[in-house]
């Protein structure tokens, strides 16, 4: 399925899965990926001056504006629009449906690889990294910090898809939590009504966060290439339905495609970056595809 791209060293997800260390995986993928790019997309880097404020005890005297002191005989401290690099937080859906695989890596593993790669990239440009894993509620939360790279990787490594998930409740909670703007990376399989998904995500967007959405799906979820009539069991709620795939396939594919298209258009309307990732595709190819499109979008913006 993967197509080689000149100048890039694409790594098959199944090979990556054998490494078993997200740090190594991230390095392997990102280093190769960056080497293949002509221009790295730095996002969130800004040290523009914002305003002055009065000096208070404890402020670093190196940040006192001496020139202003000379003019006004008062101490003022310079404030910048961003004191440091931006917050990069991964919102990782670990609901039970993410444990699905039709043979290769699970969506959960694939999402973890993806999150690790992007975290590695962010760490390299000194962004602060955090992670929130959730299903129907928030499962674990690592606050964004420049020193939390390893903890983020550890959280993703430890994540297990065990419970049914639901987007709206945990995302609402997150919206209350993220008071500071940053980059939010949402990794999920979005088994929900597109309108409901958007309603859940909107509060995050309204806070001024830069939201990037990765829609991770297994090839069987897209193609529905089952052969025998079977009882299909919903991983989320355990419901069982007898299914004759031959008669279902065409309509299923159509419904899934409509779902993807709906998500894509709704996210686009809200200026949210959306990328559909197939777990059968190499990880760096997915990164390349996404970052290329993002670069194009940034230019447009």
């Amino acid at each position, binding site marked *: 399925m993967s197509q080689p791209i000149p100048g890039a060293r694409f790594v098959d997800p199944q090979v990556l899965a054998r490494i078993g260390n997200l740090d190594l995986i991230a390095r392997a993928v990102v280093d190769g990926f960056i080497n293949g790019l002509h221009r790295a997309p730095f996002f969130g880097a800004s040290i523009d001056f914002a305003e002055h404020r009065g000096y208070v005890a404890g402020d670093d005297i190196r940040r006192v504006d001496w020139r202003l002191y000379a003019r006004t005989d008062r101490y003022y401290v310079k404030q910048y629009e961003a004191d440091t690099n931006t917050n990069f937080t991964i919102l990782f859906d670990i609901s039970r*449906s*993410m444990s*699905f695989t039709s043979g290769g890596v699970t*969506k959960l593993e694939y999402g973890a690889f993806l999150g690790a790669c992007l975290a590695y990239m962010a760490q390299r440009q000194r962004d602060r990294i955090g992670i929130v894993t959730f299903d129907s509620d928030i499962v674990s939360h690592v606050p964004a910090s420049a020193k939390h790279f390893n903890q983020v990787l550890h959280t993703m490594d430890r994540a297990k898809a065990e419970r049914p998930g639901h987007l709206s409740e945990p995302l609402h909670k997150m919206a209350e939590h993220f008071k500071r703007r940053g980059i939010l990376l949402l990794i999920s*399989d979005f*088994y929900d009504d597109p309108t409901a998904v958007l309603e859940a995500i909107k509060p995050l967007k309204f806070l001024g966060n830069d939201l990037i959405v990765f829609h991770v799906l*297994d090839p069987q*979820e897209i193609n529905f290439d*089952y052969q*025998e*009539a*079977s*009882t*299909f*069991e*919903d*991983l*989320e709620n355990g*419901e*069982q*339905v*007898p*299914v*004759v795939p031959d*008669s*279902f396939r065409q*309509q*299923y594919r159509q*419904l*899934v495609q409509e*779902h993807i298209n709906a998500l894509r258009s709704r996210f686009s309307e809200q200026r949210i970056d959306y990328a559909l990732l197939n777990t059968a595709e190499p990880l760096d190819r997915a990164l390349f595809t996404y970052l290329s499109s993002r670069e194009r979008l940034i230019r447009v913006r």
Partner: protein
Amino acid sequence: MSFLAPLFFVGLATLAIPVLVHLVQRERKRVVEFPSLMFVQRIPYKSVRRRRIRHWFLLALRAAAIAAIIAAFARPFLPRGAGAIAAAGGSREIVILLDRSASMGFGDHFERARAAAIDVVRSMSASDKATLVTFGRNAEERLRSSSDRGRLEAAIGSVTPSASATRYGPALKLAESVLGRSTLPRHEIVLISDFQKSGWSGAEDVRLGEQVRLTPVSVATERAINLSVPQVTFARATFSGQERVTVTAGVANRSGEAASDVPVSLEIEGHEIEGKRASVAPNASTSVTFAPFTLAEPTMRGAVKVGTDKLTADNQFTFVVTPETPLAVLVVDNGDQADASFYLKKALGIGASPAFQVETVPAARVSPAMLEKRSVVILNDTMLPPGLAGSALNDFVERGGGLLIATGDKTAWPASEGSLLPGALGAPVDRLSGRGGTLGYLDYSHPAFEVFKAPRSGDFSAARVLRYRTIEVTPTDRVLARFDDGAVAAAERRLGNGRVVLFGTTLDDSWTDLALKPVYLPLIHQLVKYLAQYEAAAAWRTVDSVVDVSAWLKGRADRVVLTPSGERRTLSASEPGLLELTELGVYEIRSAANTAARPDRIAVNLDPAESDLTTLDPTELVAAVTGRAAVASGAADAAVEVPAEEAERQQSLWWYLLIAGLLLLAAELAISNRLSRTERFL
């Protein structure tokens, strides 16, 4: 079609299994986990497909197989007709016990009982035989062991309720004896009654054999309301030389509902003289006292009536009241001493019930006219009255008079009148040694001595006998008492309708000190009452009791009895004159010789226990009599069926059903395998 174990039909719920097999089984073979069925469930085609049953025939086969197997476990059998049953289990000897006691007159009880009896007769096969026994206090065999249904039905139709009380014991014993004589293989008793609790005490000692089947058929009514007059009492007073009687009647309410403002009336000689109203609480009784009335004539007939209900027999209580009349006693002594009969006269001068009218005459002055209107003659140490009086005395006894002969020195009896004397009188015997002789033996079974039977009821051994006359009794005479040396002290002879008692010693203090002992007075009273054939005038008697009419009319003429229903019955003077009182109301008894005279009367009422309609659980009675639980109750038809287990065992339908079920399963297996090969998805 009936079933021995119908509870197995709960297993019919397993009929859902083939449906589930059709709908679920093949699709459940492989379960595929899928992240979300969000899109799968939106496809309408699959819903229709999975819910549609495509092979109805296969489903029907599976359902039929399971139903057949379940039906086999339920042990089916066919209840056949009476003829077939009889052929299968043998002919039956049926005893129909039909209760005709007075309580069966309540409402339509008796009609229902007759209908139940006729149902039993109609269920008989040609080889069955039935015996009709009706019962109240006693049981009566109306038609013995007949297979003629017409005769049986006619016999049942002719039965009417009686006034008798209910007793189950005699009826069951009679039924047992009837069945004991039968040669038919199956014995059955059908007991049709209102199952009054008072009819069964539990001590009847009735035990039916193992092979006898007893089926109770109850016609009782729940919560029956019944008012009754169980008894009346009389308070007598004398006013202006006439006796006045105040009647107090008890009124019982044997039901759970209060009876208020019930009319209670007193009738004398058919005329209502007073009416009152009374209220009686549930299961309680009260008393109503009427104003006194004058007893103008002997044997006045009266009745107390209370309310109306479905059992009318006990709503009326009849009685007969008579002015008290003293017993006339003629004491005949030798006349040589002024107080020769001092002790006798003193003893007979005491007592009111009855009072004694005593006249003392010397033997020489006794005339036949003196014997008229006397109940008892006492010959107190004297000779037989000479002349016509002697022979008149013989006639007097034969007509029903009583004669007491106290022997002493002066007692002399001619051999010609020996028939009057119980035994032959011998010479005097002295018992002067020690403290003298005593009365060593008394026949306490004799009515005259019965009252002394209980302990501390009279000490005869305290009396000393210093001399007595020997008595040599004949085998026809009855020895009433003996002295401690074995000699006869008293003997009795019955002559005609009368009685003669010969006492071996004196009734004064010359030969014995018996007259000085406390037992003397009751002894004299008992002997005189016995000889006078005195019976306290009962104001009423309960139905089914027997009276000796000869006590009423002393004479040689036949007696004519007029029953309450108007039937006239003649009792020959040569017969004992026993009359069984079977009807409620007043019996009138006259002498055939003098029909114009005022008759004697006997009032007959219901047994008070018969008014209590409290029912006995028929199954208890069956269990007590047979030692096992009742097989069926209420339905006479059920009584003649072969036991279900036996019918099921004989027919063995379950075996065929089981084979059919297995064959159906095999067919289903073959067809479903063929279908599964031809179709990829079922």
